[in-house]
């Protein structure tokens, strides 16, 4: 398990792609927002938490099809499925690696990009907390989508279509925490919900992911 995690991390850093790409995408989306809605700072302040959450979500989505597709193409998934590691565990580890490489940098980048969008001072802490709590769920749900579409040629678009509706609850609660935080409101309930989603998904989703992956390997 540890070996798999280390290997995935090492690959992500060496191949470059996965690691920098998500961050760059997040930056570009954030920069494009003022161009599309105008530079009024009070408007930007109001939409900043939601825009940053959406940007993080899309950046996460962008790298999902690499989560399993590369291992599928070179036969690693076949070999992993016959190895003495449970596929559920292997998928959890791969989702964790995806989060460490994609989600975690987004968490750290978000406050910097918050400056660009004129985020309210009270919002920084809650933005970071909500992203830290919520983005793991995005990776785990994404692993399910990747397992579902791994056998399909050019499944990238389909993957987005399948995964985005599944992201709705996480996005709603995550953005709600960030928004309430920025407005100085109480954030307890949505934060609890968000944490509940992340833990529930991390506990149960790998079983569904492993099931569909086994179906795809047949």
């Amino acid at each position, binding site marked *: 398990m540890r070996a798999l995690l280390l290997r995935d991390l090492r690959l992500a850093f060496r191949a470059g792609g996965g690691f920098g790409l998500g961050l760059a995408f997040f930056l570009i989306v954030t920069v494009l927002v003022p161009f599309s809605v105008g530079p009024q700072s009070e408007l930007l302040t109001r939409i900043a938490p939601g825009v940053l959450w959406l940007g993080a979500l899309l950046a996460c989505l962008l790298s999902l099809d690499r989560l399993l597709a590369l291992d599928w193409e070179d036969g690693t998934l076949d070999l992993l499925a016959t190895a003495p590691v449970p596929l559920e565990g292997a998928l959890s580890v791969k989702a964790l690696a995806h989060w460490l490489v994609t989600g975690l940098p987004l968490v750290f980048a978000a406050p910097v990009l918050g400056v660009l969008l004129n985020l309210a001072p009270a919002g920084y802490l809650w933005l970071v907390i909500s992203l830290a709590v919520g983005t793991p769920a995005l990776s785990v749900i994404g692993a399910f989508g990747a397992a*579902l579409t791994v056998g399909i040629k050019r499944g990238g678009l389909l993957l987005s279509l399948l995964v985005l509706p599944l992201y709705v*609850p996480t996005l709603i609660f995550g953005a709600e925490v960030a928004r309430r935080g920025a407005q100085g409101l109480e954030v307890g309930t949505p934060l609890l919900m968000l944490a509940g989603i992340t833990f529930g998904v991390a506990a149960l*989703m790998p079983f569904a992911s492993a*099931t569909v992956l086994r*179906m*795809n390997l047949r």
Partner: protein
Amino acid sequence: MASIWEYANPVKFLRTSEKVLPVLWVLAGACLVIGLIWGFFFTPDDYRQGSTVKIIYLHVPAALMAINAWLMMLVASLIWLVRRHHVSALAAKAAAPVGVTMTLIALVTGAIWGQPMWGTWWAWDPRLTSFLILFLFYLGYMALWAAIEDPDSAADLTSVLCLVGSVFAVLSRYAVLFWNQGLHQGASLSLDKEENVADVFYLPLLVCIAGFVLLFLALVLYRTGTEIRLRRTQALIRREAARA
């Protein structure tokens, strides 16, 4: 009494549905025509909503069937995963386009009704939003069916997606309720208030609901038959190829 699992045999299913379908089509058509004409021509206007109240005869049954169709797909998916009856998987596949049309009708009539009532085509009302999300789930489900060549793998994968999707649909429903409360305190504008609809509206509404249910059954039976025939055609062609 014969076990209902007998109908899991595709040939038997085709023969039975052949007998039932004409009756279903006629009943569905009759209920819809009667219900809609009754509702459209012979019900009074609401004192507050005016004649727009007539839209409930379409909106409410469609919304009901949009959810029921997904529930039916969920049950059919479970049956396929547990008992591996091909008819069940194909019935789920056949129901999805019907369900998505029902969702679309609910959304369109909702938007048209909202225009004069709320002064806008679309409001992020919790119920409307939930249906929009349901619509996205239907699209994903159908796209996955279309993308996989091997019919058994497609049935397997879409069934799991349907299960997982159901959990997330329920989660989304609660999330949306929570999310909109945050915007305008409990000011839920909605078309659905059967609870306090008077009898004059209620009876034609019941007939319309019956019509939509029957139409749904007829369409699903018919479309399942179509899917079975397509599979049978493929199976026969494959056997010809194997013999040659």
